C-alpha cells in the first residue's frame, strides 16, 4: 500500500460518496424526468436537492473537522463508547427513507402527475404554514440533506478511527480520488437517466436502493448487537472482532469486510450488509425487511388493481356520456365513488387528457 494513498480510506470515501450520489442523482433524474416541461419548478427543486446536498456536506465536514480536532486533542476515542448506537440509529432512519422513497418511485406514471400537482401546490405561496406542509415542501431538500449527513458522519467516524494507524499524508489524496470516483458514478447515473428507458431505470434503481436498504438493516442490527456485546464484555474498543456466541449463526475467518486488505468484502458489506459474522438478529431482520416490503408491495398492488378496475369502469361509463356538459351527472357519479379514487380519477383523467393532447415521445412505448 502506497504511503501517499490510503486504500481503505479511498474505498470508504468512494463507497459513501457513491451511495449518496446514487440517491441524489436519482432525485435529480427524477426531477428532470417528471418536470421535463416545467423548467422553473424543476430548477427550483433541483436547487433544493443541491442545497440539501451541499448543506449536508458542509455540516459533515464541519462536524468531522471538529471531531477530529477534539479527538486528536484529547487522544480519546469519543465514539468508541457508543458508536454502535450512532451507526444503528442513523442507518435505520436511512432505511425508512430509502424504502419509502424507493417504493414510491415505482408508481412512475401516476406518480408523475400526482407529484406534479403536489409539487406545484407546494410551490404555491398561498399555502399555509405547518410542519407537515413544510416537510412536504422541502422534501427535496431534507432527503439529500439527511442522506449526505449520514454518509458523511459514517465516513468521518471511520476515518477518525483510522487516522491513528494511518500516516496523515496518505489521507488527502485517497479522500479526493474517492470523492471524484463517487461523483462520476452518480453523474453517469444522472446523465444516463435521460436517455434510458424511464420505467426500467426506476425499477432497477429501486431494486438497488431496496437492496442497499436491506443491507443497511442488517448492518444496523449488527451495530446495535455489537454495542450491547461491547457493554457486556467491557470492551475497551468497540471492534474486537468478538461477538455474542449465543446468537451466532456463522463466524468465518475469511471474508471480513473490516479487513482493509480485501476491498471486495467491504463493497459486499456496503451493498448487501454482508458480514463474516452472522447473527440471528441481523439475519432475521434482513429477511423480515424483505417480507415487509413484499407484503407492502402486494397490498399496494391489490389496492391499485381495485382502483384501476373502478377507473376502467368509470372510463367506459364516461365514454357513453358526452365529455362536455355532463358535469352534473359526473359529480353524482363521483359521490358514489371512494374519495381517494376520485382524486386518482381526476389525475387519471387529467393524465389521459395530457396523453391525448401532448403524447410526449418518451411515454409512447407505454
Amino acid at each position, binding site marked *: 500500500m502506497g504511503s501517499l494513498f490510503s486504500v481503505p480510506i479511498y474505498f470508504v470515501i468512494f463507497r459513501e460518496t457513491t451511495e449518496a450520489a446514487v440517491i441524489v442523482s436519482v432525485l435529480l433524474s427524477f426531477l428532470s424526468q417528471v418536470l421535463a416541461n416545467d423548467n422553473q419548478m424543476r430548477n427550483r427543486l433541483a436547487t433544493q436537492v443541491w442545497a440539501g446536498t451541499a448543506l449536508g456536506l458542509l455540516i459533515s465536514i464541519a462536524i468531522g473537522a471538529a471531531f477530529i480536532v477534539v479527538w486528536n486533542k484529547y487522544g480519546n476515542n469519543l465514539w468508541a463508547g457508543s458508536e454502535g448506537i450512532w451507526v444503528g440509529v442513523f442507518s435505520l432512519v436511512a432505511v425508512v427513507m430509502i424504502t419509502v422513497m424507493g417504493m414510491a418511485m415505482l408508481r412512475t406514471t401516476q406518480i408523475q402527475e400526482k407529484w406534479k400537482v403536489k409539487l406545484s401546490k407546494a410551490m404555491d405561496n398561498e399555502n399555509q404554514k405547518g410542519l407537515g406542509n413544510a416537510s412536504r415542501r422541502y422534501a427535496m431538500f431534507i432527503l439529500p440533506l439527511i442522506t449526505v449527513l449520514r454518509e458523511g458522519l459514517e465516513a468521518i467516524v471511520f476515518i477518525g478511527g483510522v487516522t491513528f494507524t494511518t500516516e496523515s499524508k496518505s489521507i488527502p489524496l485517497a479522500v479526493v480520488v474517492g470523492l471524484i470516483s463517487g461523483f462520476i458514478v452518480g453523474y453517469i447515473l444522472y446523465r444516463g437517466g435521460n436517455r434510458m428507458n424511464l420505467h426500467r431505470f426506476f425499477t432497477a434503481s*429501486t431494486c438497488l436502493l431496496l437492496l442497499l436498504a436491506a443491507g443497511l438493516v442488517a448492518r444496523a442490527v449488527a451495530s446495535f448487537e455489537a454495542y450491547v456485546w461491547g457493554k457486556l464484555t467491557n470492551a475497551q474498543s468497540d471492534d474486537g472482532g468478538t461477538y455474542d456466541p449465543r446468537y451466532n449463526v456463522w463466524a468465518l475467518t475469511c471474508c471480513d469486510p473490516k479487513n482493509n486488505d480485501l476491498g471486495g468484502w467491504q463493497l459486499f458489506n456496503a451493498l448487501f450488509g454482508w458480514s463474516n459474522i452472522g447473527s440471528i438478529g441481523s439475519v432475521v431482520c434482513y429477511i423480515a425487511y424483505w417480507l415487509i416490503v413484499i407484503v407492502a408491495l402486494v397490498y399496494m398492488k391489490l389496492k391499485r388493481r381495485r382502483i384501476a378496475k373502478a377507473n376502467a369502469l368509470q372510463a367506459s361509463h364516461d365514454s357513453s356520456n358526452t365529455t362536455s356538459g355532463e358535469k352534473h351527472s359526473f359529480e353524482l357519479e363521483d359521490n358514489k365513488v371512494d374519495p381517494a379514487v376520485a382524486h386518482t380519477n381526476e389525475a387519471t383523467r387529467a393524465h389521459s387528457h395530457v396523453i*391525448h393532447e401532448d403524447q410526449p415521445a418518451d411515454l409512447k412505448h407505454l
Partner: protein
Amino acid sequence: MLASIKSLALLALAATAAQAAVVTYNWNITYVNANPDGLHERRVIGVNGQFPIPTINVTLGDTLVINVINQIDQPTSLHSHGLFQTGNAQFDGPSMVTQCPIPPGANFTYTIPIEQHGTYWIHGHNRGQYVDGLRGPLIIHNTNETYKYDEEYTIALADWYHTEHEIMLEQYLSIFNPSGAEPVPESGLINQKTDAKFNFVPGKTYRLRIINMSALAMFHFYIDGHEMEIIEVDGIDVERKVVTSFPVTAAQRYSVLVKARADATKNFILHADMDPAMFDVVPPELELKVKGTIVYNETAPLADSGVTDEYEPFNDALLVPVIPETTQLPDQIFPLTAAFSVLNDYSNKATFNDITYVMPKVPTLYTALTTGNLSSNPEVYGKYSHPMVVKHNEWVEIIINNDDPGNHPFHLHGHVFQIVGRSTGKYDPADGPYPGYINSTNPSRRDTVLVPSEENVAIRFKANNPGVWLFHCHIEWHLQAGLATTLIEAPEVMPSVLKIDPTHIEHCKALGIPYRGNAAGNEGLDLTGANVGPDPLPGTFTAKGIVALVFTIISAFLGLATVIWYAREDDAQISAQIAQAKNTEEQH
C-alpha cells in the same frame, strides 16, 4: 544407570552429612483474614492461622519435611518451585499431574531431599490457591556459598487482589471475556506489605534474594543510589553482572549483591515497579510503583528519587553460570506455539499447538506407573494433557513460539534448562533449522524464562529425572486457561525409581478420583470417557450458517422479484387505460 541417580543424591547427602538435617515444618493450611495493602480486608489462605506464611530455610543436603494438614474447605497441594525432586516426582505437587489433591481435613507429608541451593519459593498448585496467599519463600543455603557477603534479605514481590481467585477465575473464563483480559491486581506488595524496610549498615555487603510470587505482574527492580550485581538466577550461581535495574517475571528469582553506602546520612528507596503491559486497564487508583525503604538511620531523610519509566534493557541469556555445563545436540525437538483464542465452548482459552490443557481423570504420574509398556505411548495420557514423551537421558529441546500479544513466563518442573536460542517472529520447522541459536559452551540456565510477544526461545535440558513434569506459563490465569503441556520423562524407567505412598492413593479414593489406568481411568488405549477440552472454532460455514444464508438470499430474490412484478403491470394497466381512452375518443 539410574541407580546412579539415586546414589549420586545419596553421595551428595553423605558429603554434607555432618550438617545434614531433617528440617520439619508442620503446616495447617487454614483460612485467615488479612489486609496486607491496608486497603481491603479479605479472606486469604494462610498457614497455622497466620499470613504471610512462614519462610522455609534449609541447607543443601538436608531433607525437607512438610507435614500438611488441609484445614480449608477445598482440596489443596503444594509445589516447591524450582526443586528438582530427582526420583521424587510424587512430591512435586501439581494437582492431577503428580498427585491427587489433598482432600479437606486430610494429612499429606512432603518429604524432599534438598539437592541444590539458591532462592526458591513454595506455593499452592491446585487451582489458583497461591493467588489467595498460599505462597512463600523457600531459601536453600549452600554450606559454602560461592560469593561472600555479610548479611542477606529476602525480598518477595507479589501482585495482590482484593477478590478471591475462584471468583476472578470465573469471570476470566466466562463467555463474556472473549478478549481474555486478565484480572488486574489492586496493588503490589513487598514481603506481603506496602512498607517493607531493610536495615543497611554502612560498608557491609548484602545479598538480596528477590522472588516474584505474582499471579500476573512483572516487576522492574532497582534501588536508588545503589548498584547491584546479579549473582544467582533461579538457583544457578552466575558470574557477577552489574546492573542498575532488571525485570523479574512471575516465578523468577534473582540474588544480587549490594554494597551499602559509606555514610548513614540518608535512606534510600527500593523500587519494584509493576509493568502495566499485561494489564487490560490501569485504574487510576492502582499504584504501579511499589516502594520499600533501605534504612541506614531511622531518622535520616529519604534521598531524592527520580521517577523512571525507562528501564535498562536486560537479556538473561547473557548470564554465565559459575558451574559450566555444555550443551548437546538434542535427541528430540518439540516446537510449541502458544496462542489464545475463543474456542468452540465460546470462552477464551490458551493453546499450545491448538491444544488446550485439560486435567486428565487419573493423575498423569499414576497413568505412567500403571500402564506397563503402554506408558511410552503418548496416546495413553489423553490428547488434552498434551504429553511429550522422552527417553531417559535424552537431550530434549523445546522451541517456544509466543504467538500472542502478551509476554509469557514459561516454567518447567523438575529441571533447570539451558537457554540456547532467542529469535523474533514465529519459527516453523518447515522453514528449516532454527535460526536463533546462541553459540555458547556454557549457556545461561534457569527454570522460568520470559518469551516476549511475537518472539521465540529455544531451551534444552537432559532427561535425567524420570517423572512427570508440568511445563506451563506461570501467569496463573493462563495456566487455568490451559497453557500447559506435560513432560513424560523416561516412563520406561519410572517404576523402578518411583514408589507411590499408599496414603496418596487413599486421598484419591476419598475424592472419588481414579488412580490407575490411562487418562480416562480405563485399561489399555480405550479412552472413552476421558476429559476432553474445547477445540478451535471451524471458522467456516456450519449447517445452520448455510441455511441462514440461503434464506437471506432467497428473501432478497423474492423481494426483488416482487418489486419487478409490482412495477411491470403498471405498463399493461396503463396501456389498457390508454387504449380505453382512445377507444372512447374514437367513439366520439
